[in-house]
Every structure is written in structure tokens, then in C-alpha cells.
């Protein structure tokens, strides 16, 4: 059930931030193209049943079993104000490793489908538009234009920092 379909591992020496550009894994999210730094990606999983964590913030509201470890599953659609729709057969979970509150943590990200590992060149980098954006600007690390498509590089640190300090995470007994 937790079989991985692919495990993109960047070649040594080509990790992100070089002058050539940034190596990323691109994926679909509610009709938009998003990207994650390839070096952070651990594994890509088929959708598996997730366990809802009552009281958790809405965009990390469940846990999954990743190789015997319990890791949170995050739905970035909710961080970007997108509506939830049914999972298509292409939906996948991308497991990434990132520091949260000083600890290296595994986090699963729900996607509508994984595309490819590609290099985003700095030349294609565009500043986020100051107007006309529905999303919180601090949630976006960079925008890239490639093949007439916008690719969004989300700022996961900012997103999860908001979760850690956010109002969620407390249960109120419903009377």
C-alpha cells in the first residue's frame, strides 16, 4: 500500500541554488503547477488512507503511516485558499523532509498529480505580482515562467510556521 512509484534523487553536485538554476519536482495542485526543491523530496506515494487528527489545523489535519513512522499529511490547497475536490487517480503524496521548529521532520504533501523533475533557471524567475494575486504573498518563495506556464515555489517554512503559531491545535468541547 505504501509502494513508491518513483524516487527522484538528484545527482550529486546538482542540488538547488547553483547558477544553472534550481532542480525541482513539479506537481499539480488544483489546476496550478507547483514545485518543490528536489533535494527535499524523499518519496512519492500513492494515496493511502489518512487518519484525521481532531483539533489539528485544517491544512495538516491528518497523519499517515510512512514506513512505520507517523507523519503529518498536509493539504496545501487549503493554505492557498483552494477548494477541495475528489482525488483523481493521479493524486499522489509527496513526502519531503524539512526543518520544523529546529527539528528535521518528514511531512507528506497531497498533490493532484506529480509531473517531472526539472531545472528552473534563474532567468525565468519572476517577482510575485503585487496585485492580482489571490494568495498570501509570504507563502510564495518564487514564481517561475516556463513554457508559458507559471510554476509556483511555495515557502513551506512560512506556511508551517503559520501553522505552529496559528490559532488551531486546540480542542473545544462542543456543547
Amino acid at each position, binding site marked *: *500500500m505504501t509502494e513508491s512509484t518513483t524516487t527522484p534523487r538528484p545527482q550529486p553536485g546538482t542540488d538547488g541554488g547553483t547558477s544553472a538554476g534550481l532542480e525541482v519536482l513539479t506537481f499539480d495542485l488544483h489546476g496550478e503547477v507547483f514545485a518543490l526543491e528536489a533535494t527535499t523530496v524523499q518519496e512519492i506515494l500513492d494515496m493511502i488512507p489518512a*487518519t484525521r*487528527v*481532531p*483539533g489539528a489545523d485544517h491544512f495538516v489535519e491528518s497523519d499517515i503511516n510512512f514506513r512505520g513512522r*507517523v507523519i*503529518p499529511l498536509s493539504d496545501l490547497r487549503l493554505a492557498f485558499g483552494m477548494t477541495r475536490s475528489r482525488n483523481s487517480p493521479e493524486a499522489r503524496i509527496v513526502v519531503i523532509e524539512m526543518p520544523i521548529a529546529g527539528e528535521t521532520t518528514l511531512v507528506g504533501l497531497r498533490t493532484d498529480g506529480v509531473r517531472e523533475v526539472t531545472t528552473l533557471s534563474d532567468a525565468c524567475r519572476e517577482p510575485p505580482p503585487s496585485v492580482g494575486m489571490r494568495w498570501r504573498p509570504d507563502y510564495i518563495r518564487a514564481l517561475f515562467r516556463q513554457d508559458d506556464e507559471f510554476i509556483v515555489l511555495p515557502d513551506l517554512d512560512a506556511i508551517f510556521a503559520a501553522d505552529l503559531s496559528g490559532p488551531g491545535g*486546540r480542542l473545544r*468541547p462542543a456543547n
Partner: protein
Amino acid sequence: MTPDPTETFRIEAAELFEQIEQGLLDLMQDLDNRELVNAVFRGLHTLKGSGAMFGFDALAAFTHHCESTFDALRRGDTPVTADVAGAVLGACDHMHALVDAPGAPGQEEHGATLLAALRAALERAGSAAPLEHMSAPTGTGWRLRFSLPPDSMANGTNPLALLTELRDLGEARVRADLSALPPLEALDPMQLHVGWEVELRTSAPRAAIDDVFIFVMDTVDLRIDSLPPADQPAPVGPDVALGPAPTGSPADPAADSRWSRPAENVRVPAERLDEMMDRVGELVIAQSRLGQVATARDDLPLRAISEEMERLSGELRDTMMVLRMVPVSTLFGRFRRLVHDLAHETGKAIELATDGENTEVDKTVIERLADPLVHLVRNAVDHGLESPSERGAAGKSSAGRIRLSARQEGGEVIIRIIDDGRGIDRARLRARAEEAGLVLPGQALSDGELLQLIFQPGFSTAAAVTSLSGRGVGMDVVKRTIESLRGSIDLRSTPGEGSEIALRIPLTVAIIGGLLVRVGEGRYVIPLAAVEECLELPLEQDRRSQGRAFISLRERLVPFLRLRDLFATGTEPDPHQKMVVVSTGTERVGLVVDQIIGNHQTVIKSLSRLHAGIETFSGATILGDGSVALILDVAHLVAAGQQEEARMRRTA
């Protein structure tokens, strides 16, 4: 990946420090004990030697002074006083610092201050010996010849270190005695063929020279003659300076006898044990999945294998648990130093007794118990024990007694902290509780309930806040920590006679027995240890209780929480709701669930940082089908239930 040799030294140093500190503390109780003086001396000696070998020069230099002091004590030049032992104990902290962060700013000055204190203590003790064997007056001295057996380097002796130590005693001329050197073709480079002749000009007594050879005493062939006072230095051969070892063996990392100790223990980094525990946990889960598949099929061979696997994985788990067990003595050992310091700070005389140190507990439990225990011992000293004059007036011995004991009972270990102090003043406790608004004036409380108030957040009976305790962060934190280990805390106190705090902690925190329940579509685990009973919530109770959430259970009102509401499942309740009554000590609360599934051996996994703020769950586990189930934090839910009860009472 080769381990950092200095890391090896640090680990060794930590053990030496413990040994030295324990020795010093024992010595302060028993000043005439020569054995202890020798033990401390050996510890300091090894520390200095190993420190110098691994390049901790500042440490070696500083430790040298303490070593010299103990050398003087050992030889009877200086009487042993608690004052001197205390000064060396103080110096130990500085040695720690020199190991942890050599070269930190201000270290030298601090070291000098400590040495001055040590010197002063020695003078008060009427020391005959100078603190240091400084440039010894020439004139007298010793001539010694020594040779070591050929295999001694293979056994870890470094003759160069011996020569260096001799040089420390005074002006030394060293000549190598090569008479035993075999011809080149017969030379075994691993063997030692060289002897030495040393002419040492020093005022140090012969015992000082014996000390140099203390670790090789059994094997060395040593002859010592005193030099004639009239000093025409006898012509000796060319100096053998700190050159390469004559046999060409590379810088020998084993300069003392510790390597020759039989290796009965294996030192394993704690993370590796944790990793292994994780693997074993996964194996247990995989096994339970296999078991489910095997049971569902009519396949006898498969079932046989599954049962075999179950037995093996169970045994592996038990073995793993034992591996993680460490004796409580590792925890209790720290308290001797703490009590010593506390006695110093408070001016109270304290005797610390410990028993049951060999009781073994999971290492995670030990680590997490350290802080609460420190707090409890501080409390006992600060609030419990009276001053010597008060004790005298009460007809007690002037030294207060604190006893730490550990005992295993079934799957739990019970740790007690007992003092023979003044006990808890109920009237003051009550006054303080009323002041803090925890109880109403005149509210009837049993003695047990009254004592429990101590564990309320923000409660402190200390009339004056001292530097030790009573800052109002205290017993509630202790209680919470103990509960997070799924343990409980009991307090008994007799005014005028003392108090006893008993901590009951499960032996392990890695795997628990759990009760698996279903709430809506989610499955949850309730720690079995907290479950008192399961019952069906009667239909009329269920309906009647829409407004108030209480059920009468054997003459007592028990508040209950509907987990379906709490977790906002958004599902229709099952027609026959079940209630699991859980408790922490005296407080109970009912948890209403849709279905009770059954027992479940639960391997505890921690929740991710992103979910760490959710207090309702203490962790998660992986079920037989691979899905995740959350583990309820009973202490938190009971507290929530109590709040609910209090709210209901107010509105009633």
C-alpha cells in the same frame, strides 16, 4: 566513519568525574578512609594522564594541582579535611568546563581563583606540603632504573608517559638502556626492548616515584637508589628527549591500564537503540498484520509460520526492552552532589540515603525523571527539612534525613523521596489555597484532597521564595511530567515527622497495552492502565444528558465527555453508545465512544512537531491494517472533564 578520539576521551572523562565526585562526597563523610583518598587520587591521575594524551593540556595542567593535593593527602603530609575535599570538588566543575569547552574565555582566571581557594584550604588544614612540586631544590634526588616486560606496549603501557611524569617531579636526566636490544633481524617492533636509567633531582619523596609506576607496579622491574647529597651529577648518556618511541610504534593511544580491562560491556549510542526499537516496533506491527491474514485463511502452514513469527517477535521485543533498561543508580548518583550543594546553600545538615539503586528502568523514563526528582529533592530540603536548631528543639537529630528509594512492583517502578522534616502544615496549605482561589473558605476537603492541592498550577507554600524552589513553577510541572510517563504521584505527610512522595512509573514507555475504540470513523487507543471499566450508556441517560454530562456510578457522579462531539466527527452516533471510564488516581471521567473494539498491544510513536500542540493525544500507533490510530492523553481528558464538572457546578 571513525569515532573522534576526543569524543572517546570525553566519555571516559565523564565517568572519571563521576567517580571522583562520588569519591570526594564519600570522603567528606568519612575523612579517615584511605581507600577513598586513593580512589580519588587514581581518578585525578588518570584524568590528567588521558587529558594530556588527547591534547587537553589546560585540563592536564589544572588537574595536576588537584592530583598533587591528593597525593599529599595520600602520603599523610596533609590531614584530610572536608574543606580540602570541598575545594577539590569545586575544582571538578572547572575541569568539566575544560573538557567541554577548552579555551573558553576567562577559564584561566577562574582556574587561578579555584587554585587559590584550594591553597587556602590546604593552609587551613596545616599542610606540610606545598601545593605544587615546583622547581624542586637540587641537591638530593633519586637514581632509578626500570624496565618493563617486552609485551607491555601491546598491553597498553606507554613508557614515554612514565618518563614525562618523572620529569614533572624535577630535573631529570634520562638514559636509555639498550643492552637488551636484539639484532635488527630479530627485532619485533611490537615489543619493548629498552630500559631506562633516570637521574632525578627532586625533593619529592620516594612515594612520589612509586606513584608514577602505580599502574605498572606488578610488572615493572624498578630499582631506586637515593642520590648522594653532594651533587656532581654522575655522567649519564645522552638525553632521550620526547622522541619517537624507540620501537617505532605509532603514538600509542593506550597510555594506561584501562585498555587492559576485560571488555564486558559494549557502549552503544542511544540513538542506535532507539532506531532498533523502532524496527522492532515495526516488526511487531508487521507480525500482527501477518497474523490477521493468516487467521483469515484456511492455510495451516501459513498459520504455523505466523505463530512462530509471533513468538519470535514477542521475544525480540522483550529482549529489546531489557537492552533499554538502565539501573536507577545512574539517576540517584547525581543527587549526592545536589544534596551536598543544597546543604551548603541552606546551611542545613543533610544525610542522603539511597536504596534499590539496582532497580532497572527504561532509559527514556530515567532521562525524563531527572528533572522532577531534582525538584522534589530540592523541595524536601528547602520546605521539608528544618534548620539544625529547629530540629534540636523538636528532639530530632541535627542532620535532616532524605531517603531515595526505588523498587519494582509488577510492571511499575516505585520511586520514593522521604524526608524526616517538618511535614506539610495543613493550615498553611489551606490558607494558601484559599488565597489562590483554589478552594472556597469553609469548603470541606479530605486530607488527601487537601494535599493534592499542592499539585495545582501556581501553588507554592513557601512563605519566602528562595533561590532553590518555590517559584510557583513546580509541583504541577512535576505531576504533568510523571503523568506524561503514564505514572502517578502520591503524597503522604505527617506534621512534625516528615513527608513521603511516591512516584509510580511504568517500566517502559515504548509499548503499552491499549483499548482500541471507534469514534465516528476514527479509531483511537486508550491506555489500558487508565481504564477502570466499560459500560453501555443507558439510553435514557444518553437522552437526558444532552444538557448535563454526568452519570451516577456507584453513588458517585462521574462527568463524561462525548468524544464524537469533542472530535467533531460529523457522523450519526451509533444507537448504543459505550462509555469507557478512565481515571488518574482519584479523578474519573467517562469517555463516550461509538464502539469498543478490544485490546491492542500499542507501539507508541510520537506525533510530529506540527501536531505537538494538540494536548488531547499523547502519541499515535500503527494498527494491524497499516493505518494510524491516535492515543488519547487520559490525564488531559480527565482535566478537561474536571473543568467541565466545575463549570457545571457553578452554573447549577
